C-alpha cells in the first residue's frame, strides 16, 4: 500500500514537473507530436536502433526507456490516451531481457553467448505513436509503429578488454583490503574503478570480427482513430552482416533492406543492397558507402537507382562531433546531390552548411 502511495506521489510529481516545463518552454513544445520530424528517412546505412521510429518517420524528443518491470508498467500506465484512443506522442524503447535480473549470467557468459543468447541479450523493442501523415487538417488519425532490432552474432571481445578487466580486478582487490573505516580511500578506489568500468562499457561496442545485425518494423494506421479501420501501411526489414578488423580498425558492412510503403492509393516496395567501409581512428573516421535501390511500384514499373557517398566524422570532444558528407543520392529525390557539413552536439544533428543542387 505504501509502495502504491509512493508511486502515485512520484507520478504526480512527474506530471507537475512536465507541466512546469510546458509552461516555461512553450516554444519548444517538447511533448507534442508537432515537434517531431515526420519525414521517413530510410537511407541511413545502419541498423536503426529503434526501427519503429524510423519507419514511422519520427525523431521523438521524449522516449521512455524503462529498465525494470515496474518502470515498464508505469510507462504504459502513463501513456495518456487522446480522445479515448491511443496517445499520439508516445515513444518507448525497451530491452526485454534486461528488465529482469540474471543471476547466472557471468561476464564471460555474456561475451561468449550463442546465437539465441546473443539475440536475447541484444533485442530491443521500440514502440511509438504519432499523428497519421498525409491527412487533411480536418481528418484525424493515429499511426502506431512497432519494431524489433537485435544481433545474431556480436563479434569477439575487443583485445583491450582483458587488460582493463585485470586493472579493474586489481582495484577491486585494493578495495577489499581497505578497512571499512577508511571511507576516503574506498571512495577514491571506487572512482578509479568507475573510470575503468566506463571504458569497459565503451569497448563492448567495439567488438572485432564477424557480426550480424537484423531489424524489423511495421506501422499500422488508424484513420479517424477507429480500430476497425486499422491497416498495416508500412513494414520493413534490415539485415546487416559486418566484419570489424582489429588493426587497422576497418569495418566492412553489407546491407540488405526491404521496405514496403503505402502512401494513400499507391504502393511502393524498396529493395536495397549495398555496403559500407569505415576506417576509424581515435577521434576521426572516414567512410564510403554504396547502396543500390530497386523500386517496384504498384503498376509493376521497376526503377533502379543508387546512392554513393563519403563521410568524414571528427569527434572534437565527448559532446561535439563535426560531420561532413559528399556524394550522390537516390535519383528519386528532388535533389540527388549529397553535400552536408554539420555539428552534432550530442542531442541532435545541426547542419551548419547545407548545399543542394
Amino acid at each position: 500500500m505504501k509502495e502504491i502511495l509512493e508511486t502515485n506521489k512520484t507520478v504526480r510529481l512527474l506530471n507537475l514537473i512536465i507541466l512546469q516545463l510546458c509552461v516555461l518552454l512553450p516554444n519548444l513544445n517538447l511533448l507534442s507530436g508537432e515537434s517531431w520530424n515526420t519525414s521517413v528517412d530510410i537511407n541511413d546505412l545502419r541498423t536503426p536502433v529503434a526501427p519503429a521510429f524510423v519507419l514511422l518517420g519520427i525523431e521523438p524528443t521524449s522516449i521512455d526507456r524503462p529498465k525494470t518491470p515496474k518502470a515498464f508498467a508505469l510507462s504504459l500506465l502513463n501513456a495518456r490516451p487522446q480522445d479515448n484512443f491511443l496517445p499520439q506522442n508516445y515513444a518507448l524503447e525497451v530491452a526485454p531481457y534486461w528488465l529482469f535480473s540474471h543471476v547466472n549470467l557471468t561476464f564471460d557468459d555474456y561475451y561468449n553467448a550463442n546465437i539465441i543468447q546473443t539475440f536475447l541479450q541484444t533485442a530491443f523493442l521500440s514502440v511509438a505513436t504519432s499523428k497519421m501523415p498525409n491527412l487533411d487538417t480536418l481528418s484525424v488519425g493515429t499511426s502506431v509503429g512497432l519494431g524489433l532490432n537485435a544481433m545474431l552474432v556480436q563479434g569477439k571481445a575487443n583485445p583491450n578488454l582483458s587488460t582493463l578487466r585485470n586493472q579493474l580486478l586489481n582495484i577491486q582487490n585494493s578495495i577489499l583490503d581497505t578497512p571499512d573505516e577508511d571511507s576516503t580511500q574506498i571512495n577514491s578506489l571506487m572512482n578509479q574503478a568507475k573510470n575503468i568500468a566506463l571504458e569497459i562499457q565503451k569497448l563492448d561496442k567495439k567488438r572485432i570480427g564477424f557480426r550480424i545485425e537484423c531489424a524489423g518494423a511495421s506501422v499500422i494506421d488508424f484513420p479517424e482513430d477507429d480500430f476497425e479501420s486499422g491497416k498495416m501501411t508500412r513494414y520493413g526489414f534490415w539485415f546487416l552482416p559486418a566484419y570489424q578488423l582489429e588493426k587497422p580498425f576497418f569495418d566492412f558492412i553489407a546491407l540488405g533492406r526491404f521496405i514496403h510503403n503505402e502512401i494513400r492509393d499507391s504502393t511502393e516496395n524498396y529493395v536495397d543492397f549495398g555496403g559500407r567501409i569505415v576506417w576509424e581512428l581515435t577521434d576521426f573516421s572516414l567512410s564510403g558507402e554504396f547502396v543500390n535501390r530497386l523500386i517496384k511500384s504498384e503498376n509493376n514499373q521497376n526503377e533502379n537507382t543508387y546512392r554513393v557517398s563519403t563521410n568524414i566524422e571528427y569527434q572534437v570532444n565527448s559532446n561535439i562531433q563535426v560531420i561532413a558528407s559528399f556524394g550522390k543520392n537516390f535519383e528519386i529525390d528532388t535533389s540527388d546531390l549529397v553535400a552536408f557539413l554539420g555539428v552534432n552536439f550530442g542531442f541532435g544533428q545541426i547542419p551548419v552548411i547545407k548545399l543542394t543542387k
Partner: protein
Amino acid sequence: MATKINEVYVVRKSDVILSVKIGNAQIGSSLVKLDNKEISRGEIKDLIIGNGSDIIGKTLSIKTVITDVSDKTNVLTVQYTLKGGETDKNYDLKDEVSEEGDSVIFRANFEFQG
C-alpha cells in the same frame, strides 16, 4: 535489496565447498576468510573450505565488491553457493547502482554448525 547476510550452515562429515557467482554480466572480486584468516580471493569457484567436522563452530566471511560494467543494467547480483553440508544452498544478494560504473560491497557470514 540486501547487501549483507548472516546465516547458519549445517555441515556433515564431507568437504564444504564454496562458489561465488557474479551475475548480470558484471565484474566482481571476493575475499574469503575463515575465522578471520584469508583462505582465498578473486574469482571463487568450487573452493574447498574444509571437512565439515573440522570447521564446526567456525565462521566463513566473504566480502565481494562488484562494479557496474554493463550499460544494459545497473543491477548487481552475487550468488553464494555452499555445498557438502546437510543441503546444498544458494544465497542471493542484489543491489542497484544509481550511476553507471559505480561499485557496491556485499558481505556474507556463514556460521558452521553440526
